[in-house]
Every structure is written in C-alpha cells, then in structure tokens.
C-alpha cells in the first residue's frame, strides 16, 4: 500500500523581525525612533519545523496534537503546499484540500451565488462542476432565495452556513483540517457534523489539527504529538493522547473530559 502523504526530513526556517524592547525612561528618543524607523528590529531566523519524517497511509486519519505554537497549523500549510519547506520533501498523492480557513475569499458585497462560484473556482473546480454543486449547496445551507441577495444582508450564522456548505460540497482524497469545523445553530451544527464525518469516511486520508481530545479520539486512527516543531510521539491515537496527557505539567487543568 502506497502512502498518500510522505514527508521526509521536513524543516522550515522562517525569517522574523524582533523588535528591541524599548523603554522611554532609558531612551527618550525611542518614541521618535519607533515612528521614523519602525523596522529597526533585528532580523533572525527561527526554526518552526524540525526534521519531520512521517507517512500517512491510505485509510489513516492522523491527528496533530500539541500545545499552541507547536507547529500544527504550519505543518498543515506545508502539506497544503502554500508554504514551502526549507529542507526536505513532501510527496502527496491524489487531490489534497485544506479546510484551513472556512470563510476564506468570501466577498461581502457579492451575492451568495456569486460567492459559490468565486470560492468554487478558487478551490479548483470547473464551472460545470460548480453548476452541478449549486442546488446541493443552496439546499444544504438552507438559504433558499436568500442566495440571490448580497452577503451583507446575511446574518453571521447564514454566512457561516454558506461557507461551510461550499467548502464541504465535495470530498477530496486527502483532507487537511485545522480544528473540527462547525457552523450555525444547534440544528445545523449536528447536520454539519454528520456531513463532515461522511466526508472523513469518504476521503482516503485525513490530517486534523485539534485541541479537542474527544474529536481526535472519535475521528482519528493515528496521532502525532508536536512540541515546538519537533515530533515527540507518533503512533496509535490513544497512545498519542496518553503521551500528551503525561507530557502536560501536572498543575494545568486536565483537558480530557471523561
């Protein structure tokens, strides 16, 4: 069985500008300096991902587990191909799609229908594919005739429902998700949950970054624990969650709700 994602010695180093800590008392001129030389900080290179190697096989659902800033979203962006690694290679097979930002690219001034085309085209669908998706999206988002109105007239819930319905209209082969997405009122949340689970079961591989241990243990088969860009555990999801629980300092509130 060939793996759908294989990452080999992946590293990402990024340039950052660190502003000097300034104090008005020691340096009264810093007020002026901040204004006229706003980028007088120091440039340095920070390593976000350290030498990651892993494979995601057909049928595996991998959870990325770790504290904030561990590199989960960065790793997803690397897998999605929007950020390029500084070293190493990623080979993906099949159609990969990231649901990293659900309401991405929606134009408030455009109508719901125009937004379906806009987002659909940016996700790489052809016009014919989108045309066939439209009735289904309108029905699932429960917008009815409001689809012809400008998005500015939508409530926040309506927008979220539309965005969700568009991005989950078709399942890719490999799905990348940053947190388990959800939208709308209680009724829609359940509907969204069902659809997402259906997608997860249809797609051949999933990489999900999540803080919710319930979601992770319900959905995923494997877990990778990340800490400051390093992989410190890779294995079965329950083992990964246990490892992560032990890793946490004892004084922090327990995350796992039983």
């Amino acid at each position: 069985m060939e793996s759908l994602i294989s990452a080999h010695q992946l590293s990402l180093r990024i340039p950052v500008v660190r502003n000097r800590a300034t104090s008005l008392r020691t340096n009264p001129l810093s007020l002026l300096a901040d204004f006229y030389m706003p980028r007088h900080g120091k440039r340095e290179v920070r390593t976000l991902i350290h030498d990651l190697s892993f494979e995601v096989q057909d049928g595996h659902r991998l959870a990325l587990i770790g504290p904030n800033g561990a590199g989960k979203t960065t790793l997803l962006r690397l897998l999605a191909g929007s950020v390029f690694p500084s070293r190493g290679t990623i080979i993906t097979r099949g159609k990969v799609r990231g649901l990293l930002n659900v309401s991405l690219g929606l134009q408030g001034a455009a109508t719901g229908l125009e937004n379906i085309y806009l987002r659909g085209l940016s996700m790489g669908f052809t016009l014919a594919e989108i045309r066939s998706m439209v009735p289904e999206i309108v029905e699932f988002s429960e917008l009815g005739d409001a689809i012809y109105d400008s998005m500015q007239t939508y409530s926040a819930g309506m927008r979220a429902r539309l965005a969700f319905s568009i991005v989950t209209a078709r399942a890719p082969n490999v799905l990348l998700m940053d947190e388990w997405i959800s939208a709308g009122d209680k009724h829609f949340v359940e509907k969204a949950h069902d659809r997402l689970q259906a997608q997860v079961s249809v797609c051949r591989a999933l990489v999900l970054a999540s803080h919710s241990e319930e979601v992770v243990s319900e959905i995923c088969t494997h877990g990778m624990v990340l800490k400051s860009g390093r992989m410190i555990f890779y294995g079965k999801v329950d083992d990964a969650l246990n490892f992560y629980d032990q890793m946490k300092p004892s004084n922090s509130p327990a995350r796992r709700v039983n």
Partner: protein
Amino acid sequence: MDQALNLPDRPLAAGKAASSAQKSELAPEKREISGSPIKFFQLIRDFYCSLKRSGFWLYSSWIEVLLSYRSTVLGPLWILIGTLTFVFFVGILYGRVVLNGQSNVYTVHLAVGLTIWLLITQSLVGSCHFFSSNRSDILDGDTNYTDLILKLITKNAIDFLHASPAIVIAFIMAPLMPSSMALVILITLPLMLFNLLWMCTILSILGARFPDLQEFTQSSLRLLFFLTPIMWVAQQHLRGPWVDALLYFNPFYYFIEVIRAPLVYGEIPYFEIAILSVAMPIGWLTACLLYARTRPWLALWL
C-alpha cells in the same frame, strides 16, 4: 520512532457515515514539494498552470470590478467618464498651450497616452502590495502566485477596456481617421502587455519583501507622469540632449509610443519596438530568476 504503523482503521463513531463509506476514487494527481532549490523556469510553469485553470482569476477579477461599482448607477462607465472629462478639459487648454492650437492631434495624443498610462500605473502600484493584501488566499487557499498576478492584470485590463472608448471619441472629436498603420498595434499591444506582466511579477515579489516599494513606486510614477510625453508632445525642434535623455531612459515612453505612434501618427516606431523586444526576454529571465530564488520565501514574508 515507529513511523509506518499498519493499524486497522478505526470504525467511525457515527455508524451511518461509516456504513455508507465508499472511498472516493483516487485522483491521479501527484505532487512533490521540495525544499531544494526551485527550477529556473518555475515561473513559466506556474503561469502555464494558471492559464490552464483560468476560471478563478478571470472570474474573481471580473467580480472585483463588478462589486466596486455595484451600488452606483452608471457602474464602470465612470472609468470612461473620468477619462473623457480629463481628456476634454486638458485637451482644450493644453492643446492651445503645447501646440499653439495648431493641431487637432493633441486630444487624441492625450487620450491614447492617458489610457495606457492608467493601465501601467494601476498595474504597477497594485502589484507592490498585491501579495500581502491577498495573504489569506496564499496561506490558506489553493491560489498560486501567478493566479494573483493574472488577476491583477485582468482587472486592470477590464478597466482599460472601459477607458478606451475615450480614444474613439477623441478621434471623432478631432476629427481624425487612423491610417492603416494602426493595425501595427495588434502586435505592439501584446508586446506592451507581456512587458508589463514581467514588471508586475518582479514588483509583486519585491513588494512582498520590501513594503516601502509601494510608496517609492507611487511617488516615482507621479513624477514620471509629467516626464513621459502624455500631456506634452516631444516635438522635434524642442529636443536636445536633456529631453532625449529623459525620453529614452524612461521605460514607459516606449510602452506608450509603440501604441500611440502607429495609432495616432501613422508611423511604425521601429526603434521603440526593438527596445521592447529586447527588454522582454531580459525582463522575463530576470523575473524567472527572482521567482526561482524567492518562491519558497514569499509566503513567509507576508
């Protein structure tokens, strides 16, 4: 560390979803993203990919123009009205000052120069901050850099098409009839656009790294508007080493002249066409080189 565990799939909690699980057919796509240096002609390859999936940038540039005028009554006609007003009033006044009112060519000269100038400035200034204003599309979406460059050019080309009837109206007002030489613009217009495209590519890359570039471009283009023969005519008897230097070292002189000379004056500007034809491969190679060097970093600079 155990990296390739072969565990049986966990059944999903939602039984309904799991039972109907018919695995999607694997698309034949294969992608390799590597940290090793990018190939030199990656830019051309990316442009080719963008052209193959042209729906996104065509539609999104179209909708951008549409939305910016949606609540107005006259819509994108405002682009034409703005250009026409400028050409009409400046034409009346400057036609007398610049050419002593002897020639009716001035309004047409101005109309052609101004519409091309608007296309150039909007594209160049726009490209300086274009990547950073589309940051989330780049980081969270499936958008290529070349998609975005094409989107910018298309949006400005739509504006240009709305402004260009001003040229026709100026011809009628003059009244003048373009000669058969005007057909040369069928070659020179694409030549100009391909040169503009590499400039936009370079500026959008540099603008992502150096945000100051936008301010620089804006103020230098403001100056160049007056240094380029748009509102004035480079008449033979006024020329001297200084005027010539200002003309021939100004890249935008060539951009405008290759279109204006055949269209308005019925001449074929061999020298200007030659310069642009030489500049095009050099510019594209520079853009390719820059793109190959910077593409891995672009997303991180935003």
